[in-house]
């Protein structure tokens, strides 16, 4: 297989087959928190996509070019979390300057991207899968962000309709969201085995 098709396969694989939310349980907290309205879900997804692409690429570079050369793999987690925190800070400053209204509507969720498991999780998975080319790492991290955005937008769409449904009182809110996510995960299982 030539490089292009490997990249394309990797992209599709991380968006639908190995979707971070439905198969790896990453990023569930913001998934439950912001998936109430579709516009906010989309904004959140975009912010996460940007941060995950940036930090996925940077952690790959730091890991392969600095830590492995110097034999400092022990400090990997500390370095990763520092890079992610830095990237989030960058996005926060950018949004505050250029899109103040979007910044206001995010509120607490923006700094919380730092502790979004999807981002650190992806950096660790890239390391675990033994990705050896920078280009592949970039494509995978971008795909992970797109996959997250897709999952959170689908969920937001369902939840907007769920408001009108007659849900038992004790299941309102998080429980019914989780059950819906379960059904969605079942649908996404249909993609399993398509690639890899």
């Amino acid at each position, binding site marked *: 297989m030539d490089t292009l098709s490997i990249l394309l396969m990797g992209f599709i694989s991380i968006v639908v087959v190995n979707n971070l939310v*439905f*198969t*790896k*349980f*990453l*990023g*569930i*907290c913001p998934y*439950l928190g912001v998936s109430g309205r579709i516009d906010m879900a989309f904004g959140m997804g975009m912010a996460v996509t940007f941060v995950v692409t940036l930090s996925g690429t940077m952690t790959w570079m730091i890991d392969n070019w600095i830590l492995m050369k110097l034999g400092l793999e*022990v*400090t*990997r*987690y*500390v370095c990763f*979390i*520092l890079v992610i*925190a830095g990237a989030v800070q960058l996005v926060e400053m950018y949004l505050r300057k250029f899109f103040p209204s979007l910044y206001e509507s995010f509120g607490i969720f923006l*700094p919380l991207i*730092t*502790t*979004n*498991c999807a*981002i*650190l*999780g992806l950096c*660790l*998975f890239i390391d*675990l899968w033994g990705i050896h080319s920078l280009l592949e790492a970039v494509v995978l991290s971008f795909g992970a962000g797109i996959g997250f955005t897709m999952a959170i937008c689908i969920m937001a769409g369902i939840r907007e309709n769920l408001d009108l449904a007659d849900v*038992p*009182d*004790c*299941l309102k809110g*998080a*429980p*019914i*969201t*989780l*059950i819906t*996510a*379960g*059904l969605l*995960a*079942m649908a996404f*299982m249909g993609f399993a085995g398509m690639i890899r």
Partner: protein
Amino acid sequence: MTNSNAKTARYWQTLLAGLWRENPVFRLLLGMCPTLAVTAAVKPALTMGCCVIFVLLCSNIIVSLMRNLLKPHLRILMFTLTIATFVTIADLFLKAFVPRMSEMLGPYVPLIIVNCIIICRAEVCASKNGLAVSIIDALGMGVGFTLTLCVLASIREILSTGALFEIQIIRLSSQGGWFVPWAAMSMPVGAFITLGLILGLVNKVAGRKA
């Protein structure tokens, strides 16, 4: 005397809060990712719980000790760095002594760094309280989290394999028994739906009491 009694009562209250009233998973909805990911069987769930107790305890102690030195805008960064250090210790320990569990849990051990429970406790409790309260709070929350993981994991393990702690307790239909294992329970679907139903149940019970 009354002063020390009040103190003891407060410690107990803090300890018990983590177990039910402020149970991190059921009531505060924190730390959902590991809850869903590692509960396919009881053994990894228990290992994960112990790691979280260790990290929570150490980070609460350190944060509580340095709470007067913290600058507001840098505090989250300091919390995560402290936590990341202890997670690295826990991860290396698991790799060295229980390699099988380490392999099973995979990246979910380093993911303890971004577990909301630990940051939440550092922010809400340890950065405002003294050493004793922080330690007790960490123990209560950690044990509450571990118990939750074990409950969820036992349900899923029994339904998906008919076993508990990898010991067969129900005979499967393939061995001449009556029980047909639910394969879906060990997959993501089972995790989401079980947790959803348990949360519903907890809401119902808690709602009746209130």
